[in-house]
């Protein structure tokens, strides 16, 4: 690997000099177009012992995650790498993130109508139902494809993409090869006569196949598994409708218990938007659609595709205790949302306008029937189950009703009030045998602007629930001095827990300093065990007590 890297950099340096051709003027122009940029982030935590909250013992005392990106661009050419450091990784991150290395490096060249990237690349076909290579450092998610990525625009409005490679697997590569392509046609851009029409249409299609060796003595496992899909978007004035469908051929894997049933996913979205009013309605149906480049991989490892979750997420601490995690084996979900602003100077609007929003999300199981009398549902080595496409399964997984009211009264006061009703099926989402949780939460978020630069914000939250951990109360006071300083004190109190030893306070004191593109934050306190999710992809974070230092910057 050391030699490969040296060779890689030698190529880059060689390119620099061959392009410059040694001519002083050429060299000056070359250097003038050169640009080096990058970013880095460091998160370290010192862990205290805290058996009350069930914090696991950390023998190393201090854990840290760090990464740094460095990118070089010169006109059509760019190259870069990311260095990652886990000595050892923070609690809640997969322990296979261990050590230091350069798991991401690329070189890219743009010429005429095509762009070629060699090395690691990220990309998405449509909404990601067939293929999505993406990364989120806070989630510990990175399925970049190491190989080649080609993008061509042969004609205005037509984009063709091709990818071929192996996926990143911590500091190694997954065993399977992923290869595929995507074509997108924006009809209005393709034909001059249609350029300015109000009715806009675009269509697309993708095909991805993975290859993995198979050696099972009992089952005839498919070595090549293909997933393909089509999508279309129609927009007219204030309306937009988007539909996408993906189909996967038989793909027996650990996630689906080695069944030979094919899979499919459907996503439909409708939007109506005009000044002051936004309406959104969406539905998703997922049926055996986990698509990984290793049939034995589990969790978030080696996903080739991405199933978006329609369950609305929130950053408020108490309602985010119950967040939905996507169920790739089968789920039927929907979201309806309306956002409205009462105009400024109207009766309900007041001087600055008033904003309300209503969101409802719901997830149920899909319909599953036995393939025949003798075969139970999901039996290994069989076709698994039959599913009536339009029937919604009886079991409810998740429900979230949210109402938000937001109003700026004057230069001094701003108020946001939220109400959440959340139903959470812990058995399906977390794998815990327990009754479904029904919770009601109220949030009051009040900002008081002391003067131009000093501002005080308080957040009071209360969750009422009979099941699970019972009721919670939360209070936060945040003082900010714009634009650089943040101070906050907060406490999350589980006063309603049926077990009296678990009625604990999760307190936290934090301060942060931001200057330019740099932010440094220090946080001391207790963190509740829970699930941290981004976009339906979740990781479990164990309880912790200690001091956290985070530094983030770019240059």
């Amino acid at each position: 690997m050391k030699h490969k890297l040296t060779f890689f950099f030698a190529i880059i340096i060689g390119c620099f000099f061959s392009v410059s051709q040694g001519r002083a003027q050429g060299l000056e122009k070359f250097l003038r177009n050169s640009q080096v940029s990058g970013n880095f982030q460091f998160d370290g935590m010192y862990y205290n012992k805290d058996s009350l909250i069930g914090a696991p013992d950390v023998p190393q005392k201090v854990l840290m995650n760090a990464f740094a990106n460095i990118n070089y661009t010169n006109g059509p050419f760019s190259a870069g790498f990311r260095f990652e450091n886990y000595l050892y990784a923070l609690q809640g991150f997969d322990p296979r993130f261990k050590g230091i290395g350069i798991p991401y490096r690329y070189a890219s060249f743009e010429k005429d109508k095509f762009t070629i990237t060699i090395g690691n690349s990220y990309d998405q076909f449509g909404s990601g139902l067939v293929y999505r290579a993406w990364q989120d450092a806070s989630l510990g998610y990175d399925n970049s494809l190491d190989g080649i990525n080609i993008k061509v625009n042969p004609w205005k409005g037509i984009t063709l993409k091709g990818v071929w490679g192996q996926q990143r697997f911590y500091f190694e590569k997954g065993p399977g090869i992923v290869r595929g392509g995507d074509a997108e046609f924006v009809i209005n851009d393709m034909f001059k006569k249609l350029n300015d029409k109000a009715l806009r249409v675009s269509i697309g299609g993708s095909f991805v196949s993975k290859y993995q060796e198979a050696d099972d003595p009992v089952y005839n496992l498919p070595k090549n598994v293909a997933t393909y899909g089509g999508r279309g978007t129609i927009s007219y004035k204030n309306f937009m409708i988007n539909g996408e469908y993906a189909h996967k051929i038989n793909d027996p894997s650990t996630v689906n218990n080695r069944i030979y049933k094919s899979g499919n996913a459907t996503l439909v979205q409708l939007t109506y938007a005009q000044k002051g009013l936004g309406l959104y309605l969406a539905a998703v149906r997922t049926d055996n659609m986990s698509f990984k480049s290793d049939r034995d991989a589990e969790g978030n490892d080696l996903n080739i595709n991405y199933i978006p979750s329609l369950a609305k997420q929130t950053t408020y601490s108490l309602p985010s205790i119950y967040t939905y995690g996507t169920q790739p084996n089968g789920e039927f979900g929907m979201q309806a949302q309306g956002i409205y602003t009462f105009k400024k100077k109207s009766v309900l609007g007041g001087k600055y306008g008033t904003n309300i929003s209503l969101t409802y999300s719901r997830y149920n199981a899909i319909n599953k029937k036995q393939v025949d009398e003798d075969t139970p549902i999901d039996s290994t080595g069989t076709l698994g189950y039959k599913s009536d496409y339009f029937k919604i399964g009886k079991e409810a997984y998740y429900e979230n009703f949210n109402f938000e009211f937001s109003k700026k009264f004057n230069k001094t006061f701003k108020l946001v009030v939220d109400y959440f009703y959340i139903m959470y099926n812990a058995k399906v989402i977390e794998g815990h045998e327990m009754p479904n949780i029904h919770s009601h939460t109220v949030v009051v978020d009040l900002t008081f602007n002391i003067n131009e630069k000093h501002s005080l914000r308080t957040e009071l939250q209360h969750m009422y629930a009979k099941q699970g951990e019972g009721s919670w109360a939360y209070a936060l006071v945040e003082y900010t001095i714009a634009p650089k300083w943040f101070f906050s004190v907060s406490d999350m109190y589980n006063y309603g827990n049926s077990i009296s030893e678990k009625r604990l306070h999760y307190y936290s004191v934090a301060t942060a300093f931001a200057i330019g593109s740099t932010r440094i934050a220090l946080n001391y306190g207790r963190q509740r065990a829970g699930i941290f999710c981004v976009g339906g992809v979740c990781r479990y974070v164990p309880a912790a007590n200690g001091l956290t230092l985070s530094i983030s910057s770019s240059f």
Partner: protein
Amino acid sequence: MVNLPIVKTRPMKPTLCLSIIFLCCIATVFGQNEPGTNPVGLKKLPSVEVKTLDNKTFNTKDISNNGKPIIISFWATWCKPCVNELTTIADVYDDWKEETGVKLIAISIDDSKTSGNVSPLVNGKSWDYEVYLDVNSDLRRAMNVNLIPHTFVLNGNNEIVWQHTSFSQGSELQLIDIVRKVAKGETLPTE
């Protein structure tokens, strides 16, 4: 039958990684908000494809404001401080436009889970900004954005002259101050 080798990345020597970290720190300390001291000039806005709210493809190299300053703000529907920043600026945006001719371009990094919620939110809140969708974080990566909100100010040549991460009530006053200076062609103070 070919067994594909699993490529192992051997751990790098500690001195090499320490020097890389050291170089990054040096680059950050000296690379902060000092236009003109960068030996190869100011950084230009990268050329990356994003989507408009009505699903048109748009290349960021076509961003222009006729030589007047531009604010680029990275945000997401799930990021409360980002929505606060854009709501706070929306209250004074007309005044800012009249005074400096500035244009604010809001880049949403919402992925396909929430990108459908962007248009209803932008319209529901009556924002007047130019909004683009960066669903797979391509522009975010190209501009080295880690945490959001992250706001950039560009001069008339699409060069980045100032940037700031995080938002609190009152930060917008610093932002318009920078924009006024850029509009007049003045040199910017180091933060």
